[in-house]
């Protein structure tokens, strides 16, 4: 029992912190923004400490709560990544909440609860555990998307997210019930054994396909992506930043764990499903992004396209593939959070910051921040010496090794296309002279600027010296029961 609680320690700590934050939100007066922001960051830091403790006290191969939960390197990596994403998202929110005059208490608490859910997802060894984590994350993010209740767009985002999210959860549950009916278990290892013995039942394959649809929705892959642009556009921008990296990385953790840990005997069947979705996703995500004038929508389509690239690593069904997805999630998290941080900075500086014309001539006015944005755009486009290049290199290498050359050719061509829309922002910032841009009264948002700095440096460091980060993901795959 003690070992079980130890493995769950980070989640317990974070959930408790969330509740304390809720209570604090009731009590504090005028200084609530500063106090609660600091409390949220402190909570995440304490959780990181708890994670270190738990990782030290727990066997990586250990199984807890009757085999429903584990704390292997894979889970530790993802949990650290979620904590990083949540911390940066909280830092992005500090000024944003204050300027827009929304209560910070529930907001920060919900971010912590969502993070708790994500952490459970990364550790689950049983479809039921994973589902519980998923729903905790989803419920919290539905509310967060609609948190700016005085904005119509925010309402719309929350409604769409809730309805389509519920639909996808339903599909997912239906798939799980079919699988349970066919195999009699929801435990991933037992599921794999059962599917491996003899020819899998048609109901099991159908169940797998439905689960795949539910997961594809969560990573916003085409054709289950329609919610993404609207939600990303309407949600408060720091939440959009969080949604685009945290829940997406959590969905990929779940995808890898379930499909490589539980469904690998059905690899023959699902590789077409996932391969087709990956191809559609990279093509449509990039093409649709070309015509977007709203930067948040453009980044939404770009995040769809990036999910398509990452699916290639899953498709490879190899240790190299898993490693490349993990590495890519890290790369994508720092890059995308940085890019959204720039959008937040513009909004908090009084720019509208959403239409692409608002970026005209920024390089002259804010050279440092604009340089950061340039780095993020290059990284998203996969141009060296940024992290994005190294991330794509590993993904594509894993996919080529697995024989998906056609898909890689498609993906590299589409990533060349993607440079067109990423460089529309660069063009506005550097090549237009901004006489038509309307700078409003500058609001100092030091934390947002710091986030841009941190992310830009991280992107360049990972791009130039990826070795330490690659060793961090190397040890993770041994515990997925790959064939």
């Amino acid at each position: 029992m003690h070992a079980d609680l130890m493995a769950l320690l980070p989640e317990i700590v974070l959930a408790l912190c969330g509740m304390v934050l809720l209570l604090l939100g009731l009590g504090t007066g005028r200084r609530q923004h500063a106090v609660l922001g600091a409390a949220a960051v402190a909570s995440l830091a304490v959780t990181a400490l708890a994670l270190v403790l738990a990782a030290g006290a727990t066997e990586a191969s250990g199984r807890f709560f009757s085999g429903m939960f584990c704390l292997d390197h894979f889970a530790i990596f993802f949990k650290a990544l979620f904590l990083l994403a949540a911390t940066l998202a909280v830092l992005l929110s500090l000024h944003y909440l204050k300027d827009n005059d929304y209560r910070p208490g529930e907001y920060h608490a919900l971010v912590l609860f969502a993070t708790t859910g994500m952490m459970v997802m990364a550790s689950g060894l049983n479809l039921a555990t994973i589902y519980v984590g998923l729903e905790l994350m989803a419920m919290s993010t539905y509310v967060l998307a609609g948190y700016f209740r005085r904005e119509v767009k925010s309402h719309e985002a929350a409604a769409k997210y809730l309805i389509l999210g519920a639909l996808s959860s339903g599909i997912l549950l239906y798939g799980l019930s079919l699988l349970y009916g066919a195999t009699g278990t929801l435990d991933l290892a037992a599921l794999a054994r059962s599917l491996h013995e003899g020819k899998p039942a048609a109901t099991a394959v159908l169940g797998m396909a439905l689960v795949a649809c539910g997961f594809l929705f969560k990573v916003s892959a085409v054709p289950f992506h329609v919610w993404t642009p609207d939600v990303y556009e309407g949600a408060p921008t720091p939440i959009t930043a969080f949604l685009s990296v945290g829940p997406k990385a959590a969905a990929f953790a779940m995808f890898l764990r379930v499909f490589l840990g539980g469904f690998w005997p059905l690899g023959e069947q699902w590789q077409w499903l996932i391969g087709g979705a990956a191809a559609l996703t990279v093509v449509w995500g990039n093409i649709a992004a070309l015509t977007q004038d709203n930067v948040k929508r453009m980044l939404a389509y770009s995040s769809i396209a990036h999910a398509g690239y990452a699916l290639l690593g899953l498709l490879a069904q190899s240790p190299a593939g898993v490693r490349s997805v993990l590495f890519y999630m890290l790369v994508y998290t720092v890059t995308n959070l940085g890019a959204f941080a720039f959008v937040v900075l513009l909004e908090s500086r009084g720019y509208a910051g959403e239409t692409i014309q608002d970026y005209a001539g920024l390089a002259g006015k804010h050279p440092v921040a604009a340089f950061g944005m340039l780095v993020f755009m290059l990284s998203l486009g996969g141009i060296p010496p940024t992290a994005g290049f190294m991330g794509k290199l590993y993904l594509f290498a894993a996919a080529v090794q697995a024989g998906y050359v056609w898909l890689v050719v498609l993906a590299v061509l589409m990533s060349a296309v993607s440079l067109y829309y990423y460089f529309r922002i660069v063009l506005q910032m550097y090549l237009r002279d901004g006489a038509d841009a309307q700078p409003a009264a500058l609001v100092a948002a030091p934390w947002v600027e710091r986030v841009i700095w941190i992310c830009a440096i991280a992107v360049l460091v990972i791009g130039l010296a990826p070795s330490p980060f690659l060793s961090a993901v190397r040890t993770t795959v041994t515990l997925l029961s790959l064939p």
Partner: protein
Amino acid sequence: MGFATNLLNIICYLPLLGALVIIFGLRSTQTKMIKAVATIFAGIDFLVSVPLWFLYKPNGPAFQFTYVHDWIPSVGSKYIFGVDGISVLLILLTTLLGFISIYSSFTAITHREKEYYAFLLVLQTSMLGVFMSLDFILFYVFWEVMLVPMYFLIGVWGGPRKLYAAIKFFLYTLVGSVLMLVGILALYFYNSTGLKAIGLVGLGNPATFDVTELYNIAPHIPAGLQFWIFLAFFVGFAIKVPMFPFHTWLPDAHVEAPTAGSVILAGVLLKMGTYGFIRLSLPLLPDATRKAVPWMVALALVGIIYGALVAMAQKDVKKLVAYSSVSHLGFCMLGMFALNPHGLSGSVLQMINHGLSTGGLFLLVGIIYERRHTRMISEYGGLAKVMPIYAMLFMIITMASIGLPTLNGFIGEFTILIGAFARSTLWAVLGASGIVLSASYMLWMYQRMFFGEITVEANKTLKDVSKREQWTLIPLIILCFWIGLYPKPFFRIIEPSVKRIVEVVDPSYLDRPVAQVPAPVPGTPER
């Protein structure tokens, strides 16, 4: 760590250091200081690179001044710098043109100088890195980094259609290079684990991106795989060269770029493509190279003649020079795919020549553009009367570009034609027609601009070239004469490296006694 082991690192990163000094050390209002710092760094960089010429031993090991350091051990990618004769000359060309292009920009660039010189210096580092890298990933990193500063140079300081030209240049060359990356990965996996899923068994060697190690497996790569990898490399390099029909980005980029951008673009960037073929395609994929010869030569010949004909029809002198590049680079490709020592040596020398003469032409066009802000040939006429020194300099560079004996173009084109002739008379004949055409469009342009009466009032008061402008051109002219009169030291450096490539790509050619080279039937190359 001695001077020799770190020489390449110093040459490569000095410009980057200069860029950092400008970005972090100077304010954008200190334009004098910015120019001085940029010039000093580029100048020292050139001086530091000169020892390569003396220290490089043509008959020594294939790659010299090597510097190896661990980079990404988990995938077998190392940080490897090293040069052979071909890259030594291209590096010298790059450092020289880099210095000249910075020195020539003082009056042409009048806004956002800080960024301009920083971008030029970053561009310099990335180009030098390409010529030095002997690891595929490192090579690719430098190869792609190059696009970003060039994009800004065209996009910020370019002509009226700069936005269009900048993004066109960027996307066009990017599409080629991403496909090249897929080819690199295929080669990498064939050397190590193979691609089991598509039935390709690998050689089982330790995974590596080291180009020189991959040279060793070149003979073992199956023909089918060679074909696909060659195709992937071809797209990347042919767009960069640019070969017909991938040349359409070039006139736009050249015309819209500022003078220094055009000089670098024509002088060095286009050589990336030809260098890529020589360094990677030929020695790594000998089988596919031999099979591709008829196609490549056909494209090269079309490029030579088409480029020349289109150049003849141009009204804009900068566009004329741009199209002449298509024609000249066609010569380089023709010589290269003759796959014999003469053709390849001529091809390498012609890369240098083209850098000198076309770089010079763009400088000259820039000089007159700064005075009159037009590049239309019809706006000029009779310039020889008001600008005699300018006319003389222009004449020398024009002659170098056409290939007049005693100047460098002649040596390069002649050597290429010898190589082509050894393969097929027809190739040589068609190639030689390109020289005739180039003489006609260049001389016709010269005649319209410099002779006759002065028809436009504004031209009567034009100032002749200043001292600084002269000094940007004099080094180029000296080199043109040097190569034209005494090319032996250049060939001495090129030939051993070229011979190594021929030994791999067409060993039978070297065994064949010269007298027995049969005159091939025109139009049907023997391979």
